[in-house]
């Protein structure tokens, strides 16, 4: 009897937590499928019936749509989508490759200044983007990298690289050195041991690190705002353009928002196990 009450309370509590976590997303989801007059109906419309695909059609087909009270806007979601993919994948790859070398060096070799270098790399994460945004603009302009995907890929290394080094270093530390030593005894060089023993064993960690880098690159706003124009605009910038001069185009905004968040959602659900593991990283070693 006691148990049943407790179980019920648990499920109620869980339900509250879920509603709180998912309600805003559900709202955006609903708005994407609503007719324009329902966006701000009062009392609110909970389930659009019938649901309309208009908002999705508009953003994929690059139509000029006349939004009531706002006027004509034309949106095309494909280029920003492509840009976001290229930038995220590109920056993550570089961060992973360079970061794994650095993480290997920092975790497996005892040398002077090791702790300091590790801390210095980690402290880069404390840098507020706003502190380097103007120098970044000027530097990118000088090298002709404004409004290019390459420019953003390099820029996002500011975050991805330190994170990658730090996380991979921790993951490497978790694997006992003896395994590599066994390979060394068998005649491998250290680099070969690295490639054939350490990397495969830490694959889950590498995937988790990649995930974090991709999430950051995908969601970043400020640098993309300043460093891109029409050609290499990413999804977050596209979302902000819906808050236009004359009003907010809630319909296309919601449908674009769904498209923008969906891929990351899928990745996160698939790789859920790895994300959870990340959280324990580095705690024990500080």
């Amino acid at each position, binding site marked *: 009897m006691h148990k049943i009450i407790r179980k019920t309370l648990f499920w109620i509590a869980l339900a509250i937590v879920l509603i709180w976590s998912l309600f805003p997303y559900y709202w955006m989801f609903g708005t994407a499928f609503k007719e324009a007059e329902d966006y701000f109906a009062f009392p609110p419309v909970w389930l659009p019936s019938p649901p309309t695909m208009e908002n999705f059609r508009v953003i994929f087909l690059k139509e000029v749509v006349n939004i009531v009270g706002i006027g004509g806007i034309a949106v095309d979601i494909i280029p920003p989508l492509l840009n976001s993919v290229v930038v995220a994948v590109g920056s993550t790859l570089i961060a992973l490759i360079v970061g794994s070398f650095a993480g290997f060096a920092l975790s497996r070799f005892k040398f002077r200044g090791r702790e300091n270098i590790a801390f210095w790399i980690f402290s880069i994460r404390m840098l507020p983007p706003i502190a380097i945004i103007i120098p970044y603009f000027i530097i990118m302009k000088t090298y002709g990298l404004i409004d290019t995907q390459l420019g953003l890929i390099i820029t996002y290394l500011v975050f991805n690289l330190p994170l990658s080094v730090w996380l991979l270093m921790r993951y490497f530390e978790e694997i006992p050195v003896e395994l590599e030593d066994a390979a060394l005894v068998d005649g491998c060089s250290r680099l070969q041991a690295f490639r054939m023993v350490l990397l495969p064993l830490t694959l889950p960690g590498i995937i988790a690190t990649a995930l974090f880098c991709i999430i950051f690159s995908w969601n970043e706003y400020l640098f993309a705002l300043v460093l891109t124009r029409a050609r290499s605009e990413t999804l977050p910038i596209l979302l902000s353009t819906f808050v236009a001069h004359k009003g*907010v185009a809630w319909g296309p905004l919601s449908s674009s928002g769904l498209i923008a968040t969906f891929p990351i959602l899928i990745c996160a659900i698939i790789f859920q196990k790895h994300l*959870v593991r990340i959280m324990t990283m580095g705690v024990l070693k500080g």
Partner: protein
Amino acid sequence: MVKEKHLPWILLVPVFVLLLAVTIYPFVYGIYLSLSNYSIITGISFRGIGNYLDLFRDSRFLHSLKVTFIFVFSAVGAEFLVGLGIALLLNRQFWQKRIFVSLIYIPMIMAPIAVALMWRMLYNADYGPINYFLLLSRLTSRKIAWLSESQYALLSLIMVDVWQWSPFIFLVLYAGLQSVPPELVEAAQIDGASRWKIFRYLVLPFLSPFIVLAFLFRIMDAFKIFDSVAVLTKGGPGTSTEVVSWLSYLTGFTYFRLGYAAAMSIVLFALIMLLSQVLLKRIKQQ
């Protein structure tokens, strides 16, 4: 054959080169800017620490520091309580646990700009669902203008941050809870210890390194808040939500006082560094 002694340094070269180009150089440039005077018409001229001296007498900047501090500590504090609550709640086996856990951390992987836009819909004073629920449940007697009333604007931003980042703390603390040996808990329960006592004297010590880590990461990130201010309040009403990064952006991109804006962001960076040092020391001690 590569000399073993030199291998770590060679592996670290790519990281150093990239970080130098991508972080150090812009940062140094940013410092140079912060030590200069810049105006649209007269260009750039070296000034020394004058900007910093001006900052400490600038009431608008000091106010932004105050707003930022209030935001960071309220938000992170609330996130901690919520995250801990959810972690404790979910610290048991139940049906389809994995699915529920992945639903709960959806907020934190969404783009902050998308999150802010979603909440803008919810916060709408006249038609938004939040006011609808509040009026329906008679918790308030009028439609609250969440984003345009001074006493609620900052609270609204805090709520958005809590919504998005409590899952992060939840994940960290949840992982921490796994490190508590179940045998000890059972032994204490058999001995008749109350749940509160078990939590306070048994669980908490195991959790504390995780708590400090969660605080460290969240505080570092919360200080940089920008996206939601840009979309929801633009620093208003008045200056009640004018946080440092927003003021720096405004000063740099509307007034074009680039040197002064750079100085503001460097001060922000210094603050973050300081606080992180304090927290990191705590971690090391444990």
